[in-house]
């Protein structure tokens, strides 16, 4: 049986992981390579590297780090942040990424998804959507959640999947950072409308939140989180034990 995936997300700026972390046995808490390896050993099913660098120097550092990670960590690696052109796809794929996640780049140019899916295959193209309720309607936001595009979220996501996106990361701005659980209402609405894997993001605060997510929404395939893993509030190995106890299929390491 296919297992539900647990995915830690690492925000990388100027070659370092942004959020402060503290693990025993991890010498350099902000080294993306060491942290990626730590998560992989601990049972992460996949990793997301998010490049939040603004400068071109930082960009170069990011691709160096990507290469180093891909040469040491042998689980699937998704890369996002600043992906605007097919050349951006090409650069990160050559550095060892398995999937590329697009957000604002696809909003500016929806043809990017089609082009990338034709060139690299749908399995390689992830649409990441930042979604927030505005007057009771799910709206897509761009630029890291700062700008309301006015687009209705489900229409947008369905269109991206039709154009060739092979996976959806749904990040709820409403629950992001609140740590009171995933946005089940939003995730339900989206997961019922697409046939590709849906990854839930935003809101995980404890182990229970993942159990509730997978128990309530069988069409959600994976849960993504950053700070609760980075701060050690939830340990992936223990999370997976709990999931198994609750009858959720998981890969135990």
């Amino acid at each position: 049986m296919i297992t539900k995936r647990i995915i830690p997300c690492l925000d990388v700026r100027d070659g370092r992981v942004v959020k402060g972390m503290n693990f025993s046995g991890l010498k350099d808490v902000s080294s993306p390579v060491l942290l990626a390896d730590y998560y992989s050993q601990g049972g992460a099913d996949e990793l997301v590297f998010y490049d939040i660098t603004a400068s071109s120097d930082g960009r170069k550092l990011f691709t160096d780090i990507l290469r180093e990670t891909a040469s040491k960590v042998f689980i699937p690696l998704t890369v996002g942040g600043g992906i605007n052109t097919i050349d951006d796809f090409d650069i990160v794929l050559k550095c060892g990424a398995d999937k590329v996640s697009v957000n604002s780049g696809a909003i500016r140019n929806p043809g990017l998804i089609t082009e990338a899916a034709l060139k690299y295959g749908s399995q390689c193209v992830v649409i990441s959507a930042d979604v927030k309720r505005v007057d009771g309607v799910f709206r897509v936001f761009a630029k890291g959640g700062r700008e309301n595009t006015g687009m209705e979220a489900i229409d947008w996501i369905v269109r991206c999947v039709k154009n060739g996106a092979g996976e959806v990361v749904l990040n709820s701005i409403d629950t992001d950072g609140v740590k009171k659980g995933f946005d089940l209402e939003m995730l339900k609405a989206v997961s019922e409308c697409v046939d590709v894997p849906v990854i839930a993001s935003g809101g995980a605060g404890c182990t229970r939140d993942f159990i509730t997510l997978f128990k309530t929404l069988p069409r959600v395939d994976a849960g993504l989180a950053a700070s609760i893993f980075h701060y050690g509030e939830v340990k992936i190995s223990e999370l997976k034990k709990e999931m198994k106890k609750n009858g959720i299929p998981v890969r135990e390491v």
Partner: protein
Amino acid sequence: MTAIIDYGVGNLFSLACSFSSIGEEALVTDDLKMLEMADRLVLPGVGAFRDARKALRESGLEDGILSLVKKGKPILGICLGMQLLFDKDYEDGVYDGLGLIPGEVRAIGEVISKGLKIPHIGWNALSIKKDSRLFKYIKNGDYVYFVHSYHAVGCECDTTSVTDYGAPLTASVEKGNVFGCQFHPEKSGEVGLSILKAFVEI
């Protein structure tokens, strides 16, 4: 030395690194001389069968590969590279494969239950059907990473493991010196590396 056959399909960086990490020298190459020198071959592949088949034919390496394999050199096909080993493929038409293992490649949609997502993406367990030299270091039920919409059928005699996705899908095959993994050992953590280690020890 292991030669990873570069016929212009997909990115072979991680694959090469996975061999280095188990202490095996791996060379990504499109040079037939290097394939001849290598102790074993890896046939990778992503994307559509037709494109990969065309790329392999146009690489000019096909006859060389077939003759090396017929002389006994071990070859491991991975994902689409495994699908290329069979007689026939039915992805958007009918295409001839390399014919190294009897069987054909069909859409998983023909066998899996309705409502399951296609492609089959993620970690799934191996159910071992027959002993394989690739399984020296792994056990029944170990998890590996899959990404595929097609799978091999009619190859029961050579199937060494299957995985359950609403129906049993062919996960690995072995026939003499010809091996195939539908999953990605280079993306399957320690289990995947153990499979590659077993391959290089053959």
